[in-house]
């Protein structure tokens, strides 16, 4: 059984016990523990269940690569599924529960899958569950879904907050082991701005655990000194608990900092996402040990040799009393020595190499540890924990030589450099035969815009596993990073001297024993979480899933939450072996960000709730809110839809607002309307290209309604243009269209007409704009005084600048309602005051603010089109009877050529008309008018559709506009509009102007 040792544990503080709960049990660990080390210390090896077979699972690793020890962590708003116990720092009051089992971790019904496993080989679900057809949706799939899925779904909103940092540096160093520290120091000494990040809470990585010495000091002391030196450098920033999550094009990298995961409830954000632009990125991300593929290698108690060592050295935890070590390289002997020294029993080191190991092996033998050369673990025995191991020769098929009793097995299949960050953005790998590993190919790094590589791998991540080489490589990497950025590296000091034992070469072992038959292969795990075994990968190859990507997808190898950190290389090798080819020919799957999973909260950052997207506020917004307006989102604005009063429905409010406006005086906050200034000597010429109308002939002081089309000829925006002076136009756009219209202008100016002398400025927010509408609008303006608004001197489509009621104002006489109407624009800061003044002066006329819905209804009563209703990106002005607004005199405008294409000139195009239901009801939004018969694909033929439809309080009936085949020639005809449920509404084709056809109200 695993337990806490009496001594040791460089990272824990035995003076500070920490209480926590696992599956409801109260347990105690120490400050500095991870959840995994604490659980092991409490004798809890079983921590979860696997995905497919619900096999019992204990930790195999001690860090980010862990596939097994996943828990539901926390509660309520701080609940989180699938947390790796190995990277969860213990804190007081931590609560965790194990996952993916029913009814309990110890007795899981799902474990019958293990017994059935021979019927559930790789990809079995592609071959069955096909009949009867409805069973998939109603029976098979729900069952599969329930049994899959690991952790529970959170049910409550997140209690924490998150933030983003933007950071620029010369050199980003990822990984705070000895290589990263040294590379950072080289770059730092040369004066570069350096950011160094380490995913764990400690500097130094593996070196302090491995017991080697640097510059005559224990690695731990050397690390402390170099950290102190780095901390003193102003140009160097150090972050712990900060993982390099991804590398993207152009030196962009992501850091994922876990600020309060270990201090829940503390002030400040939980995670911080660093969005970094770096000149060079040094990946000093170390290497990960590989498991060995032998039968039963997934039984709790079988773990990586490095992990067993970490638990003992870092946290003073033994993973078992009798730990068998099995290896194909020298490093695992370190584990044997550490355990022996801790007073534990190491019954043997099973070394697959016929010649055995080097210096470390000799030390082990000297310490009295039995070493078996050329031998293998044929099979680990046990159920929920290891009870023993069957030993065979590695060269054979697994015949038992002896059985060794043990309660844990520490295995090492060699090491794989962590090449993820190198590879994210296209860095290539080469196969290192001697080390049996993929390592970064220095000739094929990820490249930036200048064609130069921008990622430099360093140390173990670069395939240099021996301490001496690691340090040399890291120093070089740091120096190279700065010199590639054009700086001079600091004069090279003496390289730190490493004292580490010589190691004998590794011997690649992909199956243990090498000749294992089906019986053993079908119990040898590659991917622990997803339950992919050697036999599964072989089956994939047999069935033609030969590409690594196919094999991965068919078996799900490497697709679990650890993304194959432990299983990838073993899986590739198994595939290569079955295909009779070499590992590099098989290649790797693509490494995709993030390195380990990062929270969605961190990715979203501060953007949530009210701050999800900024709300744009008009200068009069406060008043609308106070007045209890019902708002609708329009782009990033929120415009009053209507102002319900005293229990009114929205419909009633809209009707009241229209009545008041048409009867006396209405006020509309039109500040959201787009306002773009176009100015310069070439402005008239530019305006003629931009609009279908002739704008260059417009006189200063006059307004003109204009249409704007896309390059494809479709109507994209409309609005009133006012000529300010010879060189300047003010273009009003729709509220939603202001930004895109401005971008459209700039696109043409910057890409096509870059030599035209024109400036544009979006001044939408610089002005408050108010529509003063209705028969009494002139009177109220007269009351404010300062601008002559008499009928004779201020005509329809005139505009004037002046001081109205004491405020500098541009006043336009324009109308979107058919009423006598003005729009006034004042500096934004005066908007609220002018609004209040208008309300005050208008009180005697019953001045009534109205919202967007009243605006829409009134414009529809007058047959005015609305962009987005009558248009949808497929409609040209000619469809809407707007030919009058298209200049025949101009040689060109944007969209003109497109409108000459055959389909655009087709007389069969649907045209705008008015529609009146026969029974006076409101036509359903978006209904289609059907024609006789069906088309070749069996669809009902149609001959028109509704574009806008409202109840008109003015007329007391439903009114609508629509596009209809030959519509203008079919006045009086009745069309059938089926609803979705099939019921038909009939409507007559009428003129689109429903109210005040001759414009008498407007022209007074």
């Amino acid at each position, binding site marked *: 059984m695993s337990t806490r040792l009496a001594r040791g544990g460089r990272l824990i503080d035995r003076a500070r016990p920490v209480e926590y709960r696992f599956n409801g049990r109260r347990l105690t660990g120490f400050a500095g523990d991870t959840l995994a080390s604490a659980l092991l210390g409490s004798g809890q090896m079983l921590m979860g269940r696997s995905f497919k077979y619900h096999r019992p699972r204990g930790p195999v690793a001690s860090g980010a690569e862990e596939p097994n020890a996943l828990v539901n962590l926390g509660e309520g708003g701080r609940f989180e599924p699938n947390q790796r116990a190995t990277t969860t720092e213990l804190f007081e009051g931590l609560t965790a529960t194990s996952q993916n089992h029913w009814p309990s971790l110890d007795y899981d019904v799902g474990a019958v899958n293990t017994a059935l496993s021979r019927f559930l*080989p790789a990809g079995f679900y592609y071959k069955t569950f096909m009949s009867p057809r409805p069973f998939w949706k109603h029976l098979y799939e729900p069952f599969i879904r329930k049994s899959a899925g690991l952790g529970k779904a959170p049910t409550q909103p*997140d209690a924490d907050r998150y933030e983003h940092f933007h950071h620029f540096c010369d050199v980003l160093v990822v990984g705070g082991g000895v290589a990263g520290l040294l590379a950072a120091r080289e770059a730092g000494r040369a004066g570069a701005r350096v950011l160094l990040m380490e995913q764990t809470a400690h500097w130094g990585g593996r070196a302090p655990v491995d017991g080697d010495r640097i510059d005559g000091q224990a690695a731990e002391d050397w690390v402390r000194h170099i950290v102190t030196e780095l901390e003193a450098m102003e140009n160097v920033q150090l972050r712990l608990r900060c993982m390099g999550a991804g590398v993207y*094009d152009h030196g962009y990298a992501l850091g994922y900092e876990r600020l309060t995961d270990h201090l829940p409830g503390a002030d400040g954000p939980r995670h911080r996402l660093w969005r970094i632009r770096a000149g060079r990125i040094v990946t000093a991300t170390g290497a990960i040990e590989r498991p060995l593929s032998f039968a039963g290698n997934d039984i709790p108690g079988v773990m990586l040799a490095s992990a067993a060592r970490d638990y003992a050295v870092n946290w003073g935890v033994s993973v078992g009393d009798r730990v068998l070590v099995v290896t194909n390289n020298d490093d695992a002997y370190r584990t044997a020595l550490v355990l022996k020294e801790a007073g534990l029993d190491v019954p043997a080191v099973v070394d697959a190499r016929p010649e055995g190991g080097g210096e470390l092996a000799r030390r082990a033998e000297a310490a009295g540890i039995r070493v078996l050369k050329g031998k293998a673990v044929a099979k680990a025995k046990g159920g929920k924990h290891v009870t023993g191991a069957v030993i065979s020769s590695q060269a054979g098929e697994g015949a038992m030589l002896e059985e060794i009793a043990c309660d844990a097995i520490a295995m090492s299949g060699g090491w794989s450099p962590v090449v993820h960050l190198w590879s994210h953005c296209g860095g290539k790998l080469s196969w290192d035969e001697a080390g049996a590993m993929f390592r970064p190919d220095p000739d094929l790094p990820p490249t930036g815009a200048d064609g130069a590589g921008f990622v430099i791998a360093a140390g173990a991540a670069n395939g240099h596993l021996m301490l001496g080489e690691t340090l040399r490589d890291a120093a070089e990497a740091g120096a190279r990073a700065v010199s590639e950025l054009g700086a001079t590296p600091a004069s090279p000091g003496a390289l730190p001297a490493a004292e580490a034992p010589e190691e004998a070469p590794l011997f690649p072992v992909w199956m243990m024993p090498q000749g294992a038959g089906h019986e053993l292969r079908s119990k040898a795990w590659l991917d622990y979480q997803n339950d992919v075994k050697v036999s599964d990968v072989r089956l994939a190859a047999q069935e033609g899933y030969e590409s690594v990507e196919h094999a991965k997808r068919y078996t799900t190898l490497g697709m679990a939450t650890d993304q194959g950190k432990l299983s990838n290389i073993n899986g590739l090798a198994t595939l290569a072996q079955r295909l009779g080819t070499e590992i590099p020919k098989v290649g790797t799957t693509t490494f*995709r960000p993030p390195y380990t999973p990062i929270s969605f909260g961190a990715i979203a950052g501060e953007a949530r709730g009210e701050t999800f997207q900024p*709300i744009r506020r008009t200068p009069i917004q406060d008043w609308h809110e106070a007045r209890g307006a019902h708002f609708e*989102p329009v782009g990033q604005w929120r415009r009053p839809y209507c102002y319900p009063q005293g229990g009114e429905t929205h419909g009633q409010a809209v009707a009241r607002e229209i009545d008041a406006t048409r009867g006396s005086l209405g006020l509309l906050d039109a500040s959201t309307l787009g306002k773009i200034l176009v100015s310069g000597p070439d402005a008239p010429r530019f305006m003629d290209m931009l609009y279908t109308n002739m704008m260059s002939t417009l006189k200063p002081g006059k307004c003109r309604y204009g249409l704007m089309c896309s390059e494809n000829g479709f109507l994209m925006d409309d609005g009133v243009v006012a000529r300010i002076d010879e060189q300047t136009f003010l273009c009003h756009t729709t509220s939603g269209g202001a930004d895109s219209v401005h971008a459209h202008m700039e696109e043409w100016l910057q890409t096509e007409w870059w030599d035209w002398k024109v400036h544009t400025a979006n001044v939408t927010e610089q002005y408050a704009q108010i529509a003063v509408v209705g028969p009494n609008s002139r009177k109220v303006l007269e009351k404010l005084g300062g601008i002559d608004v008499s009928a004779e001197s201020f005509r329809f489509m005139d505009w004037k600048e002046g001081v109205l009621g004491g405020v500098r104002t541009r006043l336009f006489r324009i109308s979107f309602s058919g009423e006598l109407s003005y729009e006034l624009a004042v500096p934004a800061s005066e908007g609220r005051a002018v609004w209040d003044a208008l309300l005050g002066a208008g009180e005697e006329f019953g001045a009534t603010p109205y919202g967007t819905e009243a605006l829409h209804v009134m414009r529809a009563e007058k047959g005015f089109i609305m962009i987005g209703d009558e248009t949808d990106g497929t409609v040209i002005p000619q469809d809407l009877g707007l030919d009058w607004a298209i200049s025949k005199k101009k040689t060109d405008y944007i969209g003109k050529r497109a409108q000459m*294409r055959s389909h655009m000139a087709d007389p069969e195009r649907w045209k705008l008309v008015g529609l009146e239901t026969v029974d006076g009801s409101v036509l*359903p*939004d978006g209904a289609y008018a059907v024609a006789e018969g069906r088309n070749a694909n069996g669809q009902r033929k149609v001959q028109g559709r509704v574009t806008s439809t409202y109840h008109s309080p003015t007329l007391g009936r439903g009114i609508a506009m629509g596009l209809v085949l030959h519509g203008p020639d079919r006045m009086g005809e009745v069309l059938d509009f089926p609803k979705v449920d099939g019921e038909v509404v009939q409507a007559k084709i009428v003129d689109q102007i429903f109210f005040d056809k001759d414009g008498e109200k407007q022209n007074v």
Partner: protein
Amino acid sequence: MKRYSAFAIAREAMRHHEGWERAWASPEPKRKYDVIIIGAGGHGLATAYYLGKNFGITNVAILEKGWLGGGNTGRNTTIIRSNYLQDPSAAIFEKSRSLYETMSQDLNMNVMFSPRGVMMLAQTEHEVRGWKRTAHANALQGVTTEFISPRRVKELCPIMNIDGPRYPVLGALWQPRGGTARHDAVAWGYARACSAMGMHVIQKCEVTGIRSEGGKVRGVTTSRGDIDCDKLGIVVAGNSGHVANMAGFRLPLESVALQALVSEPIKPCMDVVVMANTVHGYMSQSDKGEMVIGGGTDGYNNYTQRGAFHHIEETVRALVETFPMISRLKMLRQWGGIVDVTGDRSPILSKTPLENCFINAGWGTGGFKAIPGSGWGFAELMARGHSTLCDGFELDRFREGRFVDESVAAGVAH
């Protein structure tokens, strides 16, 4: 082809699964075929399959530069729906959706088509009107959809926040028989069925040139030698521009990166597919338990099959807002594919200026759902010279201005 069934699994279990045969053969290319299809994505494979099944044309090679299904077919978020607005679109997508219903049985491979329902949220008044219009159009097109209330939205998807402070949900367009399927299995199932008909699915065979004579196609040049054919179908998605160039014509489309991502797997909590166009993101939960998430395309042309992170950020932000509970879930993996986008967001299924050379392209961000329907129609076009399913999607529509504009209905990708 040995049939797959529960019984076959039981039989094989007794002999260590050593009797399973290859899902598809791995033949050497012949000198000549009646038809060559370039691209073993879903669309290319489905085209070949229906050439054989519906027209008896089986002397066919499907040439794939990498591994079959390794393009967008193996990278997409597998949303299947047919609630399109324009008639030609609704016709081909609904044909496709209905073929998905029986695909597992037809191909004898479980493609896990799961008609769990797709909802497209309305979060502005404008969207409400837009979806109501689509619902009307769909009713006449024979596509079952319905505009549903916010309450019903919440019932169907309890983890959604319908009262978000920024964009409350005002309703949704609901297609109850839309859903998802297992993308790899679709490609594998077609490949296996094609191979069983004697067709050659040839992987690691890149087409590097197209040979013609007198304005007619003669064959292709590949990394594995010259191969002749009578008819040629180009079905290469993101690479369409390149390959059309080899045939001597240009295409009105752009290749851009579209990204997607998944969370770590969790127990079932979401039984429908939700698309939110206003905030720009969509999400579903896979059978494995991962939340499958996608959003918009990157803003520039590119061929790298990876994208810029800020798009991931925008998408995730939108979904954390819509589904607050995912905030504490973690992103497991992100990736990208290169999609071929036309000006009207509709595909090109067409003859080309080169006689006997046909093109199937422009599915852009949303062609997974179209695989069987497109294969069905395109096979007919190649075999007979005309298919009503392809009507409207001709190449010359761009010259004539005869767009099939779907961006009208949905600004969001796929």
